[in-house]
């Protein structure tokens, strides 16, 4: 039996950015972007689910983010996760990777014992690949990044194929270990229809509060009890539920600051316009021959 914790992130779909998303001051209007499950995190979840199926154990999914990030926790339950936690608090806002990894590591310590921590190699909104290694360091455990395949697990050791510059390496690591996963490592399974039916109503506290709007507080408590008993309650961990040093979270705990943001200027340019005709392209090739690039 091996227990896994999987770190996932809801990200803006940066591959589909239109002009409208950019504000006049050059910043991004995140609210206008579709929010998706970071692909590499899905691959990480798939690896954890495969370990569970082969060896038994539990898969716990954790995300830190705004309240709407519970969407990807439900999706994780649809795929096969056993439980999911939402780490959310206004005080976490503005966190860079250092502050984020601090909160995640403290949340993981609170959630319980584990043999593996999985995460995607990087998230498409920042592409930093830093939170995985930083979380491993804070949990004082080894890490394997850029994993391509879990080859085997025997007793307290795992063998992993991972990518290195210009090739790959097979590593053997003692458990517990944190592993970051490449997208191509494995194809994430589709949602199971049965699980979608079972978990589509899974809700966080704030979502139950919305459901109970207009009713008394007691009603929310009743809802929480009911959802918990049906295994449909997604616990939210805030700064009230765990001991964190407030100096180390959010903007305060983030050594890196965004000093300046510039929108990429489109249009203009000083190029020579070539007609898409034989004559036009012919003169271009002539010029490149004169420049000794061709010929």
């Amino acid at each position: 039996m091996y227990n896994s914790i999987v770190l996932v992130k809801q990200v803006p779909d940066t591959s589909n950015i239109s002009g409208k998303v950019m504000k006049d001051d050059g910043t991004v209007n995140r609210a206008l972007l579709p929010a998706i499950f970071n692909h590499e995190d899905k691959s990480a979840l798939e690896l954890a689910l495969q370990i569970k199926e082969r060896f038994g154990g539990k898969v716990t999914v954790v995300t830190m983010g705004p309240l709407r990030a519970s969407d990807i926790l439900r999706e994780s339950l649809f795929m096969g996760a056993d439980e999911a936690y939402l780490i959310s608090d206004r005080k976490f806002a503005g966190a860079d990777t250092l502050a984020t990894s601090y909160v995640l590591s403290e949340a993981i310590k609170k959630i319980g014992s584990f043999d593996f921590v999985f995460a995607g190699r990087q998230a498409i909104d920042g592409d930093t690949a830093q939170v995985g290694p930083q979380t491993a360091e804070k949990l004082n455990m080894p890490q394997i990044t850029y994993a391509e395949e879990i080859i085997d697990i025997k007793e307290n050791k795992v063998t992993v194929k991972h990518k290195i510059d210009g090739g790959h390496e097979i590593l053997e690591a003692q458990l517990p270990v944190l592993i970051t996963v490449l997208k191509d490592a494995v194809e994430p399974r589709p949602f199971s229809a049965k699980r979608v039916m079972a978990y589509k109503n899974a809700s966080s506290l704030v979502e139950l509060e919305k459901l109970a709007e207009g009713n008394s507080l007691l009603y929310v408590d009743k809802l929480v009890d009911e959802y918990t008993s049906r295994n449909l309650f997604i616990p939210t961990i805030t700064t009230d539920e765990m001991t964190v040093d407030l100096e180390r979270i959010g903007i305060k705990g983030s050594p890196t600051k965004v000093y300046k943001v510039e929108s990429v200027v489109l249009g203009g340019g000083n190029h020579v316009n070539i007609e898409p005709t034989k004559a036009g392209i012919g003169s271009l090739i002539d010029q490149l021959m004169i420049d000794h690039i061709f010929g």
Partner: protein
Amino acid sequence: MKNITNDVWVFIEQRNGHAADVSYELLSKGRKLADSMNGTLKAVIIGSNVKHLATQVFGYGTDEALLIDNPALKDYLTVPYARILDKMIKEYTPRIVLFGATIIGRDLAPRVASSTKSGLTADCTDLQISDVTYLKQNYEKLLLQIRPAFGGNIIATIITPDNPTQMATVREGVMEMAPIAYPHDVKITEIPYIPDPMDELVKIIEQHMEGSKVNLKNAPIIVAGGYGLGTKENFNQVIELAKVIGADVAGSRAAVDAGFVTPDRQVGQTGVTVRPKLYIAVGISGAIQHRAGMQESNKIIAINNDPDAPIFDVAHYGIVGDAMDVIPVFIEVFKNKLK
């Protein structure tokens, strides 16, 4: 803050005693950064039998080499390498530490930044030293860490105002390698390796190098295709054009993601940075991430049916038209002229 230094450190990434190009590129940049803050440039070399590297780094402007040479450190492993750097950084407090944004650099730097509680910015495309006013406070000679963000729609300048050490990773090929004419006298400080049980938690069972068949970095002519080509069949036209004019084939990240071309041929911030004599961009819109990987090319031709595509901003020659119409004409005219 205590013990503020003006030291710039560069982590020298080596495999089997060969330093990665990016390490020399970073030394060349590090030299300039050190000069603009009257600091010293130090190269950190970790490995086994790597003393020759500690001499080589002086050709790129290094003032002092810090050498940790031990048989136990022959191959890169996260925990021992990170532990060594952690201890050194806590002891000497460098002002700046630079790593290549290679797989090793991106594995190592965040671990070290975490334990030393330093700020770290990934995949910078430019680094500058500047005085900064931030939230009404004045800071002298901060490191401006410049990188595209958010799918390439913005360029962000990141600073680490309040921490003693500022860290950054930089992609290979982004900074220019500049050997210097009059190197500093060789000065090597050897630092002992003290083993730790945690170093043994991960072991290398097997290593397999694929050998770099693709070497875009040294290609004189590159033809690159983008997502705008629409299908893999259309991308084959790009390959055909490359074949006819004797060029190497490359692609944008979107083209790689769509499966048009293999990841080892990706040009851009998360791929290879190239500076060929001629770069032909076909059906590439020109997101900043892509441009960061090719805009230093000697001559750039952009072929795109959208006259407003940002790729035209960095192009020397622009052809507005459908790639499927333009490429056959290009091939025909080229064959006529050069046969």
